[in-house]
């Protein structure tokens, strides 16, 4: 099987988030970046498991500048065979989908994996756009995937239960928890990663239909209120009116 895994770079989960340019730009200074966990833990690892079971190749693709090579190398260390980086800032979900589609059209992948969303923008848009641009089926939020020949059986968690779908290759699937178990790169993988091919390709033109106007931080958590342990009326009032748990 010839598999493509889309990986994004996201801020490390404990990074301090701030904005600049009148709150219209995410300030990357001092932020540590990691591979988007949904891409790494579920999409990439399931693709590797399929390759290990049935043979084939796993290629990872990222849209971003050279600074993203560290994240790409980690994917190679975990086990991907090679990588492609589209050399441009990922301006929007459509831009990213368009770049990946351009590469995928020329390569005829059997399946394209990506995480269900990135943990920074939480857009969950690229998968659907990519499938549309490639004119192939799209299964979102896959939590289990089995291949039988060219047919994939994919389970996806839905409200109150599980939906199971079948789809023929080629297809795009976004991956959520349950799809695979996280893999930690071993030393052999880390050392081999730098020897694996990483192809850098230029971006193609893509019209932007939307512009980010501004970002804002969530409201700060309110302070802890200390109550007199004898004042049960006030406790009940707060639980009812403010916490809204009664």
């Amino acid at each position: 099987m010839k598999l493509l895994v889309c990986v994004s770079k996201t801020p490390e989960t404990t990074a301090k988030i701030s904005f600049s340019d009148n709150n219209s730009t995410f300030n990357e200074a001092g932020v540590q970046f990691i591979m988007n966990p949904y891409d790494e833990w579920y999409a990439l690892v399931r693709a590797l498991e399929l390759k290990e079971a049935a043979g084939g190749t796993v290629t990872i693709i990222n849209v971003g500048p050279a600074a993203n090579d560290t994240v790409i190398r980690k994917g190679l260390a975990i086990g991907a065979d090679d990588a492609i980086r589209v050399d441009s800032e990922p301006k929007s979900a459509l831009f990213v989908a368009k770049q990946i589609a351009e590469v995928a059209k020329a390569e005829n992948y059997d399946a394209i994996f990506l995480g269900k969303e990135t943990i920074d923008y939480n857009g969950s848009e690229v998968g659907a756009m990519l499938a549309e641009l490639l004119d192939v089926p799209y299964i979102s939020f896959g939590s289990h995937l089995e291949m039988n020949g060219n047919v994939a059986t994919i389970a996806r968690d839905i409200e109150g239960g599980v939906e199971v779908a079948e789809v023929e290759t080629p297809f795009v699937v976004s991956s959520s928890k349950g799809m695979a178990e996280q893999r930690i790169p071993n030393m052999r993988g880390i050392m081999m990663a730098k020897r694996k091919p990483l192809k850098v390709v230029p971006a193609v033109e893509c019209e932007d239909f939307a512009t980010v106007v501004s970002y804002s931080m969530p409201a700060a958590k309110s302070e802890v209120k200390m109550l007199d342990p004898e004042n049960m009326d006030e406790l009940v009032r707060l639980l009812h009116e403010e916490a809204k748990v009664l």
Partner: protein
Amino acid sequence: MVFEFLKAFFIFGLSKKQTIKMAEKYVSIKNIKFLLNEVFDVASLNRFEYYQDYDKEGINMSLDAAKQIGDTYLFPIYTDMDKNKAYYEDGAVKVHKGLKTAIKTLAEAGWISAHDTYENGGQQMPFVVMNAGLFVFYAANANAAAYAFLSQGASNLIQAFGTAELKSTYVPPMYAGDWQGTMALTEPQAGSSLTDITSSAEETEEGYYKIKGQKIYISGGDHEATENVVHLYLARIKGAAVGTKGISLFVVPKLRNENGRLVSNDVSTAGIFGKMGQKGYVAAHIMAGENDDCRGYLVGEPHRGLSYMFQMMNEARIATGMIANAQATAAYYAALQYATERPQGRHLSKKDPNLPQVLIIEHADVKRMLLFQKAITEGSLSLLLQCSYYADIASVSTGEEKENAHLLLELLTPIAKSYPSEMGIHSVSAGLQCLGGAGYCDDFPLEQYYRDIRVNAIYEGTTGIHGMDLLGRKVMMHSGKAVKLFMAEIQKEIVAAQSSEFLKPFADKLAERLKAIHELTMQLIQVAMNNKPEVFLADATLYLEYFGTITIAWQWLKQGIVADKALQAELPEDDYNFYQSKLHTLRYFFEYEVPKTKALHERLASSDNLTIEMKAEYFM
């Protein structure tokens, strides 16, 4: 009634939540990367062919992978391994159920074989990177990780001195985490004094030796998390000379291979020791040859066992310092977390009880205790990585560079082992103190860290032994060449720091203390030359403490030079705070720790031989 229930629930809920609060952080990867990349520039080791594949990106990725292993397989079982300790039952040693996975994960991730050659299945990883990774594992859970790295030490010994058959039989299963390696030295009558070993080895016509004897305190000596145990066993071949020169080294497996099957090798476990700490880390009492059927396989040449074993012991001494420092580091982060969450008391200038309480980290004395821990642990880590760096240079370079690195490593090994072990105890104690009564209770991990760290000042040579090793042997070896090299290394940092307005006072202070210890050393050597070995070495432990403090001050100056330079640029808030934390901790070390050397100097320079003159009968 409802109100009473609610009240009870609310109060219980708050109380319970508070008491089960565990530490979230046990190590700072940012600090390790700072040391490796900015202070030691370890990527430059790739100028040597053996390390040519290591660059900054690969080193950082290795550390991140180590942290993931620590987070996933080691740290989550740290306290549980203590609460569900190892035990002996029906001739078998039962250990925590998570241990097998932990050992196997470390093996499969390539960390046990990391330094070995590609041909042998290793990754030719520099010692300094490998030890940084081990530090992460030990901080996460030294009681689990130590099993895996005992196997590494045993494998190294076989790789260095064993036959091809020994290598192919015993090393791959230890690298794979399937078999456990140990160091079997201590006997009931022979602890620090290995001269008195009585385990015997009798040569047979078949080529192996029949082994008979007992070993005690054997770490990892028997357990069910691996399918076999391989003891690197010191014994005396029958007829060999008395003393250390008659001791040979053998591979003594618990199970031996006969016709492709593992069968008993007549190595049994009499029991395990009930320890103050490290309760998940087995210390076994091993009996070999009770049925006259224990086979040992000679490693290297007869009668050279102790010198071979010392190769492993020097690695183990660095590892012991690393374990102690890792435990103190984890304890520091646990104390820091508590200090940033626990409100108690008010500022002395604002005592109004109507004002909210402040977090305890606002109190100067708590800050002092946290600074003490930070100064000890980050200073010790820097020294341990410095020694690992010297081990790399000594391993792969040639000529004078190799010889100098070897001498510096020899000189600093007793300090790298003892300073983190001794000061780590005080550091964890300060961490425990930050928590007040909660620190003494087992709802928080500090009391476990305090119990666990204590043995490191005893393992692999007590502090007293290392004091005598430093003053009685290392300082004078090669006519004092190692000390001269050490002084020159520090002098380089002093000169570099003197060009900084901020660092100059500290550089000057270090220069003054360096001159003082040099003069003291000359004075003590004169005592030795006057043929008074008892007087010369009576306070060797204090000399070790003095030397250790100077050494850590050097490491702080080294870190300070990098931090001071980094702060010349505009930095993101986190980076700014990180480098400022380095300079503040450097200030602490020079203001609070370095002055203690003056008291040590006064005692060491004194001619009052009171410990020698004190009679046993006076202790009553």
